[in-house]
């Protein structure tokens, strides 16, 4: 590829690429995200290419794209121009796919279509699929529709047109557009992006003029994977967003800090940076202008606290990732004490469209104070697990029931944890709540990075809160005492409650400790760590009380609080539990006679419950 020396040359390259692509010809997009790769996407692609070659169909393009979002159904495949969506594709299906869908011009292979467990319907097209129907994919628009390792594909889809447009505006005008769009940080707190950029632009620093642009790709929040999908599926758009930011604030150097647990994201970002350097879309004198921007990747090494901006910058500098007191804000003194603007992946990826299509267009999406779209990672006990990008203001019900298809196996929806370990849970009473920054915060949850983990009646909320606190407690960096010691004490209390040793006053103590940790911790990790506990106490206090006072776990999930017995009617006397399951010999019984469990010897391991073929073991 030849270096582009001007904005006109970029436009010419785009025209050339567009002229060479014939969209009426069949093209196969196979999802190459981590989820689908784990489900065999690479093998399916290889098999497809082989079949096409054998049939002399060498002109049919097969593209490995980023995440289509519907990870549970992987490996996924879309055949254009017919908009046919196939799930769970295997290498042995490829012969038939080529015969019917490609040679047969859009005939479908029915078993590979999406069979919806909720409605019982079969869906052929992406546009009709209930998982996609209410989505509005903007940040994720290209994920699944471009080859994630092809800069030509991105340029064809208006890639770097926003950068070209911005380079003909002043940095102040670019910031003004971002401000007017209402875009707020997608990583957690929801700080207006334009304001942050303005602060970066105005920062004096040490007078050398050196500034940094940093992307936080340290997606450590368990249950969130949208940043991973963007980095894997559309790395070029992230880079363009960062270049727009760098131009606005006057930074000439930048870092993308990526979790080491995301090897595919790192690989694709490296490829994308290489292409951009070659084309002169990164490096010195971008598109022949005075603007230069050098971008590097920094691999994290597994520390949740590095999502905090001051911890992240100290990690990039090669130190322990521990936060420091602010001010000074990182926009005044961040990386190597220079003004540093830090945004998350989804935030940067939203900017190119704002510049290209205008702030008014973006502000027209979503609600007044929470504009635009937001990506949610919906997981846990739902029928359709995956990534959904929706306009802000959609209700919780629409997200969980219309898009994710509600709770499977006839179970009841109990709660959804919004915002991961820093967030809180929403319950049935919140189903009509619009999803925006203010409404979520008011209800005791947060937008966070957009994790939405749904739980059903089988999940114990005390254990659920303990799970999150166990995570934050382990990830606490140990610098400030409220977080280091406070979360530890809270965890001890929760462990005690789940073990059936809860005491009168424990709930009040948890509330007191929680409030204290929130008000006195140094950084966002500590300030939000008690949230899951406080919000479950708020909405499920009766479950805590049942554990403490009745020594019962209403969801039958906390093992020390369970009692096992055998339904004398259902038991057929097969002796499986006696001979193969019980490790302590607590079950008595002969063949063909109903068995009994000796409660004194039972260690509540649940092995009998798991092995019984007649569902005769009662867990309560």
């Amino acid at each position, binding site marked *: 590829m030849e270096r582009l020396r001007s904005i006109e040359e970029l436009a010419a390259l785009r025209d050339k690429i567009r002229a060479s692509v014939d969209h009426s010809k069949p093209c196969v997009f196979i999802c190459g995200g981590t989820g689908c790769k784990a489900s065999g996407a690479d093998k399916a692609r290889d098999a497809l290419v082989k079949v096409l070659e054998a049939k002399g169909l060498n002109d049919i393009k097969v593209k490995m794209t980023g995440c289509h979002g519907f*990870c549970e159904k992987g490996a996924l495949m879309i055949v254009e121009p017919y908009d046919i969506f196939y799930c769970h594709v295997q290498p042995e299906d490829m012969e038939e796919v080529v015969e019917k869908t490609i040679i047969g011009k859009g005939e479908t292979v029915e078993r590979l279509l999406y069979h919806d467990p909720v409605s019982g319907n079969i869906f052929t097209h992406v546009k009709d699929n209930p998982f996609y129907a209410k989505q509005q994919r903007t940040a994720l628009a290209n994920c699944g529709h471009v080859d994630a390792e092809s800069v030509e594909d991105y340029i064809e889809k208006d890639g770097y047109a926003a950068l070209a447009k911005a380079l003909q505006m002043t940095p102040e005008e670019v910031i003004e557009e971002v401000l007017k769009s209402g875009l707020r940080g997608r990583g957690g707190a929801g700080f207006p992006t334009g304001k942050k950029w303005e602060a970066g632009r105005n920062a004096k620093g040490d007078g050398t003029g050196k500034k940094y642009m940093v992307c936080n790709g340290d997606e450590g929040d368990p249950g969130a994977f949208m940043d991973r999908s963007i980095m894997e599926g559309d790395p070029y758009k992230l880079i363009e967003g960062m270049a727009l930011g760098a131009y606005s604030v006057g930074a000439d150097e930048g870092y993308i800090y990526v979790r080491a647990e995301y090897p595919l994201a790192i690989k694709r970002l490296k490829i994308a940076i290489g292409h951009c350097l070659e084309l002169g879309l990164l490096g010195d004198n971008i598109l022949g202008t005075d603007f230069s921007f050098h971008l590097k990747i920094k691999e994290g090494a597994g520390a949740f606290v590095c999502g905090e901006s001051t911890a992240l910058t100290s990690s990039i500098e*090669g130190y322990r990732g521990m936060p420091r007191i602010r001010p000074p804000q990182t926009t005044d003194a961040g990386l190597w004490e220079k003004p540093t603007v830090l945004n998350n992946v989804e935030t940067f990826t939203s900017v190119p469209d704002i510049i290209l299509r205008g702030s008014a267009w973006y502000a027209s999406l979503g609600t007044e104070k929470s504009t635009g779209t937001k990506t949610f990672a919906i997981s*846990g006990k739902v029928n359709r697990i995956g990534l959904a990008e929706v306009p802000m203001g959609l209700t919780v019900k629409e997200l969980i029931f219309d898009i994710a298809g509600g709770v499977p196996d006839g179970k009841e929806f109990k709660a959804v944890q919004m915002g991961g370990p820093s967030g809180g849970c929403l319950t049935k009473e919140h189903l009509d709540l619009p999803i925006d920054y203010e409404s979520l915060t008011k209800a005791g949850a947060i937008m966070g990075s957009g994790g939405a983990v749904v739980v059903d009646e089988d999940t114990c909320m005390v254990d659920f809160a303990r799970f999150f606190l166990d995570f934050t407690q382990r990830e606490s960096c140990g610098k400030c005492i409220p977080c280091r010691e406070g979360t530890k004490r809270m965890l001890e209390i929760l462990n005690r409650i789940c073990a059936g040793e809860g005491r009168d006053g424990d709930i009040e103590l948890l509330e007191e400790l929680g409030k204290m940790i929130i008000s006195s911790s140094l950084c966002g990790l500590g300030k939000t760590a008690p949230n899951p506990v406080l919000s479950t106490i708020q909405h499920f206090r009766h479950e805590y009380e049942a554990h403490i006072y009745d020594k019962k776990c209403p969801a039958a999930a906390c093992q020390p609080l369970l009692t096992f017995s055998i339904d004398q009617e259902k038991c057929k006397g097969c002796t499986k539990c006696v001979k193969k399951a019980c490790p302590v010999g607590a079950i008595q019984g002969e063949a063909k006679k109903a068995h009994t469990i000796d409660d004194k010897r039972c260690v509540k391991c649940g092995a009998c419950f798991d092995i019984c073929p007649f569902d005769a073991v009662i867990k309560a």
Partner: protein
Amino acid sequence: MCECCGGHATKKDFPQVDAILAKFKGVKGSLMPILQAIQGEYGYLPEDVMSYVAEEMDIPLSRIYGVATFYAQFHLKPRGANIIRICLGTACHVKGAGKVLSAFEEKLGIKGGETTPDLKFTLEPIACLGACGLAPVVMVNEDTYGKMSAKKVTEVLNNY
């Protein structure tokens, strides 16, 4: 020559480490990538190598130790030839990841975070692998296994 041990220890040579250090010479904030590269080479961070790095980079060994113990990725003990990473993230947790971990622990006779005596497997619980659509998820080296269950554990182990 080091005198603290009676002059027995002589300075060792680490040509692979020299190559890594040369690659990052003059790069700002390069300690983490250097440790990552060394761990890629040795599978863990051996103490004598860390002392060598401290001397070559002219930084205190305590700082290297601080960084190496802060991040979950770094290991100071040898690790198994195969790394089994068990996701205990939220989505996996509510779908029974705990039982999968117990099954691995039982099968291998080690606890999470430990390595089998024959150095074949290391069992590593992980906060989130970001593949929540496939929960519960286990990764063995670079291979991802989705929708895991306690029953599938033997089958997975037999692949290695």
